[in-house]
């Protein structure tokens, strides 16, 4: 973290992160993976997003993508202006952006990112790959990421979700059952 950053600025980051956490809780209520985010421009929230892959039946509907979509849609007639606003904005997200979202943020030039807990499985800001700061030619701007803002609460929400088993996940194939089925066929019992 930048040493010049004052305590006052840090408390501002916490304030915005609390807003993002509210959205994560809303996602949890809808039985989505609880991640939320807000995009802040000139001290104002200009877009928010919460994870909605279950509702959209589309696994790419992460909070960050939803929020960016809202802004691009509102600048439909003037994309350049929208991208300028995004480049001046800051993203607050409760969990480290995944590799997809890190790529997406590079593409739209939303380079200031503050996140909560890290994401060991998909994280794109260093946990798995460093999509955020690697030099990738012809692939947008590198991001400035700061993690660990209100990370305990972000993690707690995720844990709550995963302990109450994910009802939306497909039924795993029970391999034990499969063996039993083949043995049943082998036996003399008639197969319907």
């Amino acid at each position, binding site marked *: 973290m930048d040493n010049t950053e004052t305590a006052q600025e840090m408390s501002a980051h916490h304030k915005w992160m609390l807003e993002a956490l509210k959205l994560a809780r809303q996602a949890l209520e809808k039985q989505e993976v609880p991640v939320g985010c807000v995009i802040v421009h000139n001290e104002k929230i200009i877009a928010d997003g919460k994870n909605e892959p279950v509702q959209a039946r589309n696994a790419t509907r992460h909070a960050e993508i939803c929020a960016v979509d809202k802004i691009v849609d509102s600048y439909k007639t003037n994309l350049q202006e929208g991208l300028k606003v995004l480049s001046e904005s800051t993203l607050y997200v409760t969990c480290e952006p995944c590799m*997809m979202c890190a790529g997406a943020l590079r593409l739209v030039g939303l380079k200031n990112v503050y996140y909560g807990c890290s994401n060991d499985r998909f994280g794109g800001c260093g946990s798995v790959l460093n999509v955020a700061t690697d030099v990738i030619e012809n692939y947008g701007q590198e991001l400035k990421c700061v993690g660990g803002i209100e990370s305990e609460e972000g993690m707690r929400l995720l844990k709550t979700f995963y302990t109450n088993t994910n009802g939306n996940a497909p039924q795993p194939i029970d391999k034990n059952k499969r063996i039993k089925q083949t043995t049943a066929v082998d036996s003399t019992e008639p197969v319907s």
Partner: protein
Amino acid sequence: MVSNAKRLCQRSLLNDISKWKAILDDDLYQIPTLISMLCCQIIDSKQTSLILKQVNEYFNWQKYKHVKRIYCTTDEQNQQQKIEILLCRSIDTLDKIYPQEFLSKYFHMNNVTTVQIPEKQPLLKWQYEECRKNYWPNLSYRENKYLEQEYSNKKNEINSKEEAIIDMLKQLQTNHAVQSQHCAVVTNSEHEILVATIDYRHEHPLQHCTMIAIDLIAQMSNGGCYHNRKNFLYEFLLSSTVEKPTTNHLCNSYFIYLTHEPCMMCAMALLHSRIAKVYYLETVDYGALGTKYKLHCLKKTNHRFQVYKLQIENEQEQ
């Protein structure tokens, strides 16, 4: 399903095409990571089994089960058996692991050598042979037929259904693409086309053809959010057939055919969507499935899939 008249006479283009080339983990193209071990000769070869038992107690070999600890050769001059044994890693201190009297009793301690062994079991036959020849001759190995096949690229011919799909991609590019030439076709595992789409990155920086394709699949099960985007498949159909409802979970078991290698966002979107196979025609310098990264080979993620690139017959192997 696709009208013959609409399938351009682009077969000539395909005459040059030989195969899909599997994009595999870098681990398959290099010698496995090596670690050095201290190696010693046993004085009395008759006592080998006893010694081995004790040595295993002092330095557990569980982690290196793919390497046989003992190597036996016969000296041609005096017809004597020479037995070498791996004692411990070079970074360990020999005296700390084994009692001094044990070492001097059973081994020729004036001749301790270092030997390199592969840290993990070699994945492919060539790696096994190479390690045996250059490092330690006594390794255990089990052939992985699937990996060997993918590595040698023998079974990845382009079938006629795929030729039609490539035709369709080329037509999307010439007849429908607006600015960006990137196009995508999603099929089920029987190569039946479900979605064909073009790229809208000039209107929305995130609406790459892959993201649109994934969303159009979501729309088939009453989800999705880019409702203004069109499934170009219906441009190719003879009659407007009724959309089949799908009960598929995301893109599970589906294949995607792309004109260009996907970027990190799209590649990860495909991973999140549980795609089974990705095929692409051209690489891009920021590509995440072979060029800049090999996302599908990462061990931390929860889903792995196969990736193939079109290889032209006269194109040299890299």
